[in-house]
């Protein structure tokens, strides 16, 4: 608590930050750093260890007395190291040149990040301690890994609030298409021929890190620009949108061209185009005029220059000189907001609010957020975010159930599976509902096919055909929320059977952000031999598999969750039997809690809703920033979670919190933007 409050206090010392009062009030609203690892700082401060030279308190007031809660993480960690690691990694005979005992303070650990990343990874993976030594139970490995991570995160939260890195982002394929759609006012997927982008960071394809450029991109952008502009030239309303000025008695063609090109470039670049930029583009117009093009053709030719300019293709923000983070400018903020919620360029209203600078005021952007979330333009973001977070975007593409076993699974059903979470998310966004509904809702979105599929009889929406509609669930129904949705249940199955392991992993990884470490190498997977399968349910076979101690520790966390979902087949249909035997959907979590079926399992997940909200916040922040989170971002995450918890988990509160956070409001100095290749790896 002490450190956190101090760090926020120092955040106030940035004089130019216009919204500091708001952020301050917001940040103090909840209990911050409730995690037990905080106390390691308290411990260190109290003990006044060697390397600490000054208190992080900026105004020199005495630190609050440190209370050491139990169990103390620092002591727990050193005890673990003592018991399992020092025997080899100490002093003269240190194995692999690694003397772990010399890291006797937080500062020393933090100063050697690459080494500790490796230590953390190898312990988590079970590579250390090595085979001939006493193994560490998986819970301890996970605890230790988290502890190391928290050491770095907590350390990063001291001192001034940090915006984190701000790597230059290229528009991804979706953003490119949406931007062209809005720029030209056409319904045409201009990005259809661009290479498909991979995902990085928090798992989204808008992450700057993985938006690389290949030689193929240059020509693809050129061709796509030509194609889109051709389309526009044939579309009356699109032409009217672009040519707001035409040559007439009072306007020379050059002046009209300048006006049209200037306005278009300013929209595309998400800030007013400079005179020099407009002059440059005008040269293209003039070149075309010399080749006897018509006025319109010549302007369109110049617009090609806009659409292939890096100023359009990259989300460029002005340079931040000096060595201090600076508040964001209104145009950059409008663009960030727009690419966060719409995955597209700012519209007229956002541009106006940027032009008068008011977009930086909280009441103004709060209204804009509400307006934006109510616009149909929010759909691409909803689709892209939820589809990638849950993995449902791949249904019907990479994820296809075995067509011989699931005759009913056709393209339409696949589309409905993909669509359901998108509509639910859009509904939550628009109506500012609680995030918790994603886990547990009393409604589903269905079409006539999935209405039947979910075994629903009551509350059938009127005229229900192919489009999905909201449908109220009867009390006690198993469905409601993403865990029992057909899409995620399909994503976490094999093409030909369910997998309690994959489903358990899906829930832990996707919902709770706590994936277990990967299986040890060369492990014998589950036997599919007919003689091993006969007369057993999948559950019974997995229980046998778990008798192998090497497998047991992880599977004890994974399998029970999956067992709870065994009433759903591999495309999410309800079933009573597996392999002719009745389903047993009961289970016990490693924490000791038991459940009888999916409904009770969901209740247990709900008891961990803060863990879910934290994970969801990490995802949302990663999407908003278009990059993977770094240590200092987790200070923001903690504050966001505390805040949204105090506000009934309302999603708009989370979105506003993200917009208010230092990561959005501040920009790091350009020259010291942390390089893309900082973390070391594989040694």
């Amino acid at each position, binding site marked *: 608590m002490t450190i956190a409050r101090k760090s926020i206090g120092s955040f106030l010392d940035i004089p130019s930050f216009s919204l500091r009062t708001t952020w301050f009030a917001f940040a103090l609203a909840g209990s911050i750093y409730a995690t037990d690892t905080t106390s390691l700082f308290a411990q260190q401060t109290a003990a006044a260890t060697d390397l600490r030279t000054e208190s992080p308190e900026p105004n020199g007031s005495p630190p609050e007395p440190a209370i050491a809660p139990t169990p103390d993480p620092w002591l727990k960690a050193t005890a673990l190291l003592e018991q399992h690691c020092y025997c080899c990694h100490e002093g003269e005979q240190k194995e692999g040149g690694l003397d772990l005992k010399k890291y006797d303070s937080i500062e020393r650990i933090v100063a050697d990040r690459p080494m500790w990343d490796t230590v953390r990874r190898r312990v988590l993976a079970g590579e250390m301690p090595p085979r001939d030594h006493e193994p560490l139970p998986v819970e301890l490995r996970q605890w230790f890994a988290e502890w190391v991570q928290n050491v770095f995160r907590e350390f990063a939260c001291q001192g001034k609030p940090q915006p984190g890195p701000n790597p230059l982002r290229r528009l991804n394929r979706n953003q490119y298409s949406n931007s062209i759609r809005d720029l030209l006012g056409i319904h045409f997927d201009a990005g259809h021929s661009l290479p498909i982008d991979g995902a990085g960071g928090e798992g989204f394809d808008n992450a700057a890190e993985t938006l*690389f450029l290949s030689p193929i991109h240059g020509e693809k952008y050129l061709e796509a620009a030509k194609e889109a502009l051709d389309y526009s030239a044939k579309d009356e309303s699109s032409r009217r949108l672009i040519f707001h000025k035409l040559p007439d008695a009072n306007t020379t063609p050059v002046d009209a061209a300048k006006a049209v090109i200037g306005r278009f470039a300013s929209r595309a670049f998400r800030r007013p185009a400079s005179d020099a930029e407009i002059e440059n583009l005008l040269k293209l117009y003039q070149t075309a005029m010399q080749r006897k093009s018509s006025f319109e053709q010549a302007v369109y030719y110049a617009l090609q220059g806009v659409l292939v300019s890096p100023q359009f293709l990259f989300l*460029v923000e002005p340079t931040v000189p000096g060595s201090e983070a600076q508040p964001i400018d209104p145009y950059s903020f409008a663009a960030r907001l727009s690419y966060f919620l719409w995955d597209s360029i700012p519209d007229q209203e956002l541009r106006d609010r940027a032009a008068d600078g008011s977009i930086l005021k909280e009441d103004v952007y709060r209204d804009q957020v509400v307006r934006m979330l109510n616009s149909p333009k929010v759909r691409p973001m909803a689709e892209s975010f939820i589809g990638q977070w849950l993995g449902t975007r791949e249904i019907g593409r990479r994820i296809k159930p075995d067509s011989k076993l699931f005759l009913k699974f056709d393209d339409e059903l696949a589309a409905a599976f993909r669509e359901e979470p998108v509509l639910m998310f859009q509904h939550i966004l628009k109506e500012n509902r609680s995030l918790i509904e994603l886990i547990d809702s009393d409604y589903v979105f269905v079409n006539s096919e999935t209405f039947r599929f979910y075994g629903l009889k009551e509350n059938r929406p009127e005229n229900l055909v192919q489009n999905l509609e909201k449908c109220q669930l009867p009390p006690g129904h198993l469905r409601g929320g993403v865990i029992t949705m057909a899409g995620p249940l399909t994503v976490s199955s094999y093409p030909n059977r369910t997998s309690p392991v994959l489903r358990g992993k899906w829930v832990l990884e996707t919902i709770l952000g706590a994936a277990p470490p990967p299986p040890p190498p060369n492990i014998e997977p589950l036997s599919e031999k007919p003689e091993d399968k006969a007369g057993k349910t999948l559950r019974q076979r997995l229980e046998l598999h778990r008798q192998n101690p090497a497998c047991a520790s992880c599977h004890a966390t994974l399998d029970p969750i999956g067992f709870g979902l065994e009433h759903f087949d591999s495309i999410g249909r309800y079933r009573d039997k597996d392999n002719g035997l009745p389903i047993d959907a009961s289970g016990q979590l490693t924490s000791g809690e038991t459940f009888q079926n999916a409904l009770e399992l969901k209740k247990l997940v709900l008891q961990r809703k803060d863990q879910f909200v934290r994970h969801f916040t990490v995802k949302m922040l990663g999407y908003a920033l278009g990059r993977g989170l770094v240590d200092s971002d987790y200070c923001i995450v903690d504050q966001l979670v505390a805040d949204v918890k105090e506000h009934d988990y309302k999603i708009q509160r989370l979105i506003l919190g993200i917009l208010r956070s230092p990561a959005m409001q501040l920009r790091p100095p350009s020259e010291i933007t942390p390089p893309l290749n900082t973390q070391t790896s594989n040694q």
Partner: protein
Amino acid sequence: MNILKNKSLSRRTLLRGAGAALALPWLEAMQIRKLLGSEQENVPAKAPVRMAVLFMPNGVPPKKWTPEGEGADFKLSPILEPLAPFQKDILVLTQLWNKNSDSGDGHYVKTAGLLTSTTINKTVGVDLNCNGVSMDQVAAQKIGHLTPLPSIELGIEPVAVGIDGVVGYTRVYGAHIAWRGPTSPLAKEIHPRLAYERIVRAGGQGGDSLQADRSVLDRVMEDAKQLQGQLGANDRRRVDEYLQSVRSLEQRMDRLANHQGDPWKPRASYDGMTQPGEKIPDKHLEHCRLMIDLMVLAFQTDTTRIATFMFGNSVSNINFAWLDGVSDAHHSLSHHQNEEDKLRQYERIAKWHMEQYAYMLERMKSLREGEQSLLENSMVMFGSDLRDGNAHDPHNLPIVLAGQGGGRITTGRHLIYLRNTPLANLYLSMLDVMGAPVEQFADSKEKIPLQA
């Protein structure tokens, strides 16, 4: 020698080359125009060497891969059986391994490092780095300027969504075997129509539109250079990637405008071909064959001399249940646990890949270039990044090299090396054949003699 006197390609030859098994609508309509008479004087006798790498994910059932016997006297294994008509045109290479991919996880490290022979960084994005350049791109950097496109990268599956949180790698790695630089994987084209358009556009554009594009690109270069001045080092690198992509396009336009490039004139042009359909074919077989056709097209028109193709991405779980005797998906079956039934299906899938490889060889062998066939002037490597999919082991990788590389490769042999011979040794030799020799490639020790 005047190649015009030689038998030129007829549509019938081509169809025969396509194999009776599958007459593609696109291929059927394809016509190859004779070379323009006026340019014949400059045509050198020697056709250039072309190189393709075909990647198959998920490894092979190890006991069904290696041929019996050694040297010229060998008996094809069950998986290699589709190559029977080409036994004299192939080298089967046994006991090569890719040492630097023997860490990390079971798949991504192996796939992304297959042609780089390096260890990639473990990351979900921030420090994406393969720590090398792939073998095909080493060649492209040396000889790529001789053709409209330095290289083409084709595939079937789009980059999979998300990051693999469990093993801690971005799936971007698993979708790329071609790396122009440590941080620059090459995006691959998976849409046959788009790939076709790119090939044709690259080779055929000219006149006014070329000039017009050139002016637009000049603007881009100015913008980009101006932008570079405002950016920190890492952002500058991103913009530089864009600059390079634009520059390579400009260079291509210049070469076209000035009729530069290699004096060798290809036998075939793009005229009169029907383009592939608007949609990506639903059927995996048809999709793969179209992509193979496109590689052959790019080679025979000399649009490029270097191609890589991925039958699937790392951990590919393409469902092969449509294939006779198979009921499951590729990656699932590769975890066969030595069960007979799974091994049989796994083998069938590997053999299916070999059939597609054979299809490509058949096409290339049927296309004449002077006195040789296109296959004789090429080398086509087939390989997987794993030996046994159940063990994820990069020892003794399944590797075949087909084609005589313009007379630089003595084919028709099964070569068995000492265990742990670097795969990079083969790359060293292949780069030699391509006319792009290097002293050292990753962990290479010495060249593998390809000529008897």
